């Protein structure tokens, strides 16, 4: 199948090998585009394409269009669509799946979200637990966007004053303790 935009690298489901996109399309194949997800979505107004549109793209395997969009990054995991989908499809999980594929394949235009997640996980790897202050600092540093971090400055100050941000290292015994686990996961995923 092709669209009238010939540059698409999409191929019809069922002809490719074990591909994450294809698995996802399979999980969503029962979708009948009723639009309940879009109607339920608290954030659909902020999305460039609606969830219904997104699932249609997934069904048709139009990967470019999917990852051109920021829609799945705007999902706040409220699970309303999952709850209300008359077909009982795991839509919120599918949003997560798309995030994962985007990160894995580097398919994102706006790097704020992936960056934040990566920063977060690095902290976890290092300390086992999250140090919010460090996550934020590293995240804003990585973002290199003073405008965004400035938006959070008043909050940071407020939190400091309330004694909520402490320089204390989270209490897991042994730094980098989760390293082996991370490595093992990576190793296993590379295997499959």
């Amino acid at each position, binding site marked *: 199948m092709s669209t009238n935009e010939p540059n698409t690298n999409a191929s019809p489901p069922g002809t490719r090998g074990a591909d994450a996109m294809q698995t996802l399309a399979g999980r969503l194949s029962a979708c009948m585009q009723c639009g309940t997800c879009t109607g339920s979505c*608290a954030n659909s107004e902020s999305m460039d394409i609606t969830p219904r549109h997104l699932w249609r793209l997934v069904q048709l395997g139009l990967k470019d269009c999917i990852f051109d969009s920021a829609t799945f990054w705007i999902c706040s995991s*409220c699970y309303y669509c999952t709850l209300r989908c008359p077909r009982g499809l795991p839509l919120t999980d599918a949003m997560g799946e798309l995030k994962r594929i985007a990160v894995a394949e580097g398919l994102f235009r706006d790097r704020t979200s992936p960056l*934040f997640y990566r920063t977060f996980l690095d902290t976890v790897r290092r300390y086992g637990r999250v140090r919010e202050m460090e996550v934020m600092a590293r995240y804003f540093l990585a973002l290199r966007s003073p405008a965004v971090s400035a938006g959070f400055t008043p909050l940071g100050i407020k939190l400091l004053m309330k004694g909520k941000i402490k320089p204390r290292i989270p209490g897991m015994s042994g730094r980098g303790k989760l390293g082996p686990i991370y490595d093992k996961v990576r190793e296993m995923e590379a295997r499959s």
Partner: protein
Amino acid sequence: MKYFYYSGCSLEGTAAEYDTSTRAVLRELGAELMEIEDWSCCGASAAESASYLLSMVLPARNIALASRTGIEADFVVPCSACYLNLRRVGDHVHRDEALAQRINEVLSEEGLTYQKGLKTRHLLDVLANDFSCEDLDERSRRKLSGFKVAPYYGCQCLRPYRDFDDPQQPASMDPLIEALGAQVHPWSAGARCCGAGLMTTKKNVALRLVGDILSAARGADCIVTVCPMCQMNLESFQSKISRERGEKLDISILYLPQLLGLAFGIRDRELNLHMNLALTEPFLHKLRTITGC
């Protein structure tokens, strides 16, 4: 009653008052909390975007730690995001046998084994179902009469798992609030989304959601929450939103155990109300007339 207590990272940091008040209230109610030695982050929403397996292994590690003790007790989790992550492991493993093996292959690095069996429960579930209203009534040293409380549930303690309440019209907090002598604010925003992590990554999207919730709460004395993320989102940007919307939307935001603690007469050393970012003067005034100080 004994529970494994998984506080999660937030309660060690920005949500310390949630942690202390939870511990105090459960203690008052006669529950015993067991710490999980060496617990680690559940992965939050970040792990999912990196690796599915990692998003399963991180919470599973904590369950494995608890089951190593050989004690059979439920997990009680105050943070909704942590609750969902922990809860999900059991569900996914239930549906996919191979997953358990893969998880254990990873966990064997630490000599840990994940086993099915331990039940993960949200703090609200425990408060609403393991104790009767009579228990609460008995422990209340003062009635919060005259307070109109808007119960805010957020998303992930209700959805997608319908463990203890209706996922769209939740009501489990109502009897608790009423048992304290307070009144429930009638609204339909209790299960709406606060924007969660988008507050960091897509701030404008989240601010709109929070604004709608605050607006729906008008007429209430305070909103109570059961999730650090919700609490933070609701309390942190009130003046900004009020400015943008051109209406006064500031309102006190408390954690549910803090509210319980106020009725139980728990000392502020444990309630840590001073750590809350949004407590309005009228609220505090009303509170003083009840506590008499």
